[in-house]
């Protein structure tokens, strides 16, 4: 299933090779550029930008309740550019809801969400995608009547603004990377659950996001598949993409993320170095179920 | 102008619409089946009652009692053998099949009963009898209609939200395959639901047929009010359907009181206004 040539994140079509940022739509994307073109010295203006946009994602006292149930309780954290943040927590802690708040699928009750320095608290989900937030859904939501390949094309053409020809190449590569190439021309409605999950990932990648939100994509994979997935995510991350990953398969998660955040009853009860977090009493008790 | 009377007549009219809508509320609200033949099925039931009244000389109410199980069978059969095949996420197959059915019923009735305008005799005095309540006088038949509507809705509510059968109805409408894994026979459950809806249709037919003339082609005209009542009430909410019927009824009589030109329009406008304010109706189901 390995692919020759490998897949890498290519610059969005409208981004100029010399590093000058012309797109008004995606000004915030420049931090990633810097990592890609890291060999040279960044220009002064880019440094400015770099400083201004140290955190790609910033949540300030975000609150959300479903009826009497508090699912986000004064959640505040930020994710610096290029970081990979893992989120763990018991079932029902509010992890997926947090993603829905970040992508705008669920409206916040209070608080502020900023993306690359811009307030996006009230921005439409579609706009957020165009700004560079890509996501997977925990319960896959493929376009069932479109083929797998067309599913990706949609993401690539609309999400990253690529032309159809460019998008087709990128999609084909992503299909190969995610092991779906065999199923490229099958309507997505005929996929098995795990194939659907891969499609979720592939589609999110095809939008060429600067921030990638992954919701439980490693569950149900065999060891080998899991290893491959981790490789993929590492590579994407290496390409400069900021990642937030919700996962219950801890060994996969901890092998990628730089920081770990623990959520319980909608509250952030810990954030920091993965190893430390995993050792913490709270996590061992409420999440791993190890008696202490 | 007598506003009290206008409102009271509107509420009573709402009872009639709610009765038309209650059967629809079951199939549309619970199975998400847009039944365009609903109006024609009411007319079919009315002809059935009429047939029983004229052929056997039964009283209209007794005839309706006899017709109800027959209509239950019709509904059961229809759902089991025809409509079940159209269910799914797509609203079009049921739309088309029931539209075809509507045409078939209308024209079959035309062939069988001609285009004559008929009426079910409700037993002389009852049709024109009324209760004088001082400022307003309330017709006995409209009052009976309203009371029947409320009774139908109370009973249906108990069945659908308080029994294992009702649970099976709702589960099947969500996901027939998984319901099958629970031991629910989806085809039978839907057939039973439609059968029950047809019993309600028979009750509606009794009042449709006794209050005014009907002919084979009169069904679709009332269908739109029934749909409006179901939608502004909120999908799956039977009380909502009653409320929806009353809103449309009152809007119509108030509109007419201003000027009869606005009577029907006012009902539609009330529907539009409710949906602009609450796009999912007054009492939407939590999960949809």
């Amino acid at each position: 299933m390995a692919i020759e040539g490998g897949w890498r994140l290519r610059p969005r079509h409208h981004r100029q090779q010399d590093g000058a940022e012309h797109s008004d739509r995606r000004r915030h994307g420049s931090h990633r550029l810097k990592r890609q073109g890291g060999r040279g010295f960044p220009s002064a203006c880019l440094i400015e930008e770099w400083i201004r946009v140290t955190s790609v994602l910033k949540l300030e006292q975000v609150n959300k309740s479903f009826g009497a149930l508090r699912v986000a309780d004064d959640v505040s954290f930020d994710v610096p550019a290029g970081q990979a943040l893992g989120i763990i927590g018991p079932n029902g802690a509010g992890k997926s809801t947090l993603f829905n708040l970040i992508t705008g699928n669920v409206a916040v009750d209070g608080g502020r969400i900023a993306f690359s320095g811009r307030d996006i608290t009230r921005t439409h989900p579609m706009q957020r995608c165009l700004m560079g937030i890509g996501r997977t859904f925990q319960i896959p939501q493929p376009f069932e009547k479109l083929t797998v390949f067309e599913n990706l094309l949609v993401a690539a053409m609309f999400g990253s603004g690529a032309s159809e020809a460019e998008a087709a190449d990128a999609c084909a590569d992503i299909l190969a990377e995610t092991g779906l190439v065999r199923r490229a021309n099958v309507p997505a409605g005929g996929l098995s659950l795990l194939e659907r999950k891969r499609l979720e990932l592939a589609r999110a990648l095809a939008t060429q996001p600067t921030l990638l939100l992954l919701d439980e994509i490693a569950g149900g994979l065999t060891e080998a598949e899991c290893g491959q997935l981790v490789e993929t995510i590492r590579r994407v991350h290496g390409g400069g993409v900021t990642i937030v990953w919700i996962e219950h398969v801890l060994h996969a998660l901890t092998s990628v993320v730089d920081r770990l955040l623990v959520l319980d009853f909608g509250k952030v009860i810990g954030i920091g170095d993965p190893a430390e977090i995993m050792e913490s009493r709270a996590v061992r008790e409420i999440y791993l179920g190890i008696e202490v | 102008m007598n506003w009290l009377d206008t409102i009271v007549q509107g509420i009573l009219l709402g009872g009639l619409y709610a009765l038309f809508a209650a059967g629809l509320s079951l199939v549309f609200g619970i199975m998400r089946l847009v039944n365009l033949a609903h109006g024609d099925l009411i007319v079919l039931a009315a002809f059935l009652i009429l047939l029983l009244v004229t052929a056997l000389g039964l009283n209209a109410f007794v005839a309706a009692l006899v017709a109800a199980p027959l209509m239950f069978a019709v509904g059961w059969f229809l759902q089991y053998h025809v409509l079940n095949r159209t269910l799914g996420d797509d609203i079009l197959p049921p739309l088309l099949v029931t539209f075809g059915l509507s045409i078939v019923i209308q024209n079959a009735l035309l062939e069988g009963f001609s285009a004559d305008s008929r009426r079910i005799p409700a037993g002389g005095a009852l049709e024109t009898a009324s209760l004088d309540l001082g400022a307003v006088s309330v017709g006995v038949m409209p009052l009976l209609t309203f009371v029947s509507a409320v009774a139908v809705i109370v009973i249906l509510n108990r069945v659908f939200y308080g029994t294992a059968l009702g649970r099976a109805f709702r589960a099947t409408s969500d996901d027939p395959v998984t319901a099958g894994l629970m031991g629910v026979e989806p085809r039978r459950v839907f057939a039973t639901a439609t059968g029950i809806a047809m019993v309600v249709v028979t009750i509606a037919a009794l009042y449709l047929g006794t209050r005014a003339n009907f002919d084979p082609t009169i069904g679709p005209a009332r269908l739109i009010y029934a749909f409006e009542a179901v939608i502004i009430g909120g999908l799956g909410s039977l009380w909502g359907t009653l409320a929806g019927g009353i809103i449309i009824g009152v809007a119509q009589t108030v509109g007419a009181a201003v000027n009869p030109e606005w009577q029907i329009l006012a009902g539609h406008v009330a529907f539009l206004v409710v949906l602009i304010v609450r796009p999912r109706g007054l009492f939407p189901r939590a999960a949809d």
Partner: protein
Amino acid sequence: MDATVRNWKVETRTRASTGFAVVALVLVVVGLLAPFFIGRSMLRDLFSILTMLVLAQSWNLLAGYAGLVSVGQQAFVGFGAYAMFACVSLWGIDPVTAILAGGVAAALLSIPTGFFAFRLHGAYFAIGTWVVAEVVRLLLAQWKALGGGTGTSLPSGATRDMAVVEAIAEWFGVRSSHASDILTYWLALLLAALTIGAVYKLLRTRQGLGLAAVRDNHQAAAALGVDGARLRWVIYVGSAFVTGLAGALIYVQTARISPDAAFSVVDWTAYVIFIVVIGGIGTIEGPIVGVLVFFVLQNLLADYGSWYLLVLGLIGILVMLFAPRGLWGLFSDRTGIQFFPVRRILTGGPAITESSHQGGEPHG
């Protein structure tokens, strides 16, 4: 690293479709020349077929591709027709210009109605559009200058005095009523060809793909950057425009209008739905097949009174039950033939072994 050879290819055209493009062109040309060699009665039949086809294509675009199942298209037929009548009868405008005005009026009407209808989804949308159409009907029934509920007729001679009718009459050497049939036929042919062309073009662009995505899952589509709302608006207003044009054109030929006729849900929406679904929804070929079947049935059965409608209803039911993807779907599934392919097939590269076993299925 950049030298990776890419041998992926994306294909949409099929051999049948390339051949068909030529055939289609020939058909249009033959259609344009038809008045030279066919009689008037055939011309009128073709006119009805073509106008119904336009209605069917625009409803299909709406329901089959955008997932907006409207039961209220008669609003635009009627409104377009009434606008045309007002232009001709009240303001003395030439009917051909008035047809355009009818289309524009319908498009304008679609803006406020869309504002309302887009708050609704699925079955709600269907019923909502129906109610809106009723409201428009009831409002126009109050327009006393055009006869209120009674209706009105075009001034006699209005169609005979249409621009170019006289020229056509001379050219063909026919009576002016025949000449106006020729003109309306040409307009219908033009409208049908342009509608099909425009729909196909739209579907082949990225917007077409976006449309399919939104219809399948609007939440996921939004999360991938597809502007579903804008797409829906474009489609809704566009199909209202086309429907309005068709309505105005139809009533130029009928020459008499009344609210019940112009806003008939059965004539302008139910039969259209019937046509599309019988033929195959979500395909461009479907409505074409459907409209032909419909007319054959009508001609065969129309003299049998209520039996005609009864049989029509039964056929609709049977097709829906046993060939839910319509007659064209049935054919296309068996043969894999598509004249208007829109599916993008990825070929080349390593190991795309399976291709879809439903290869014939378009996004429908």
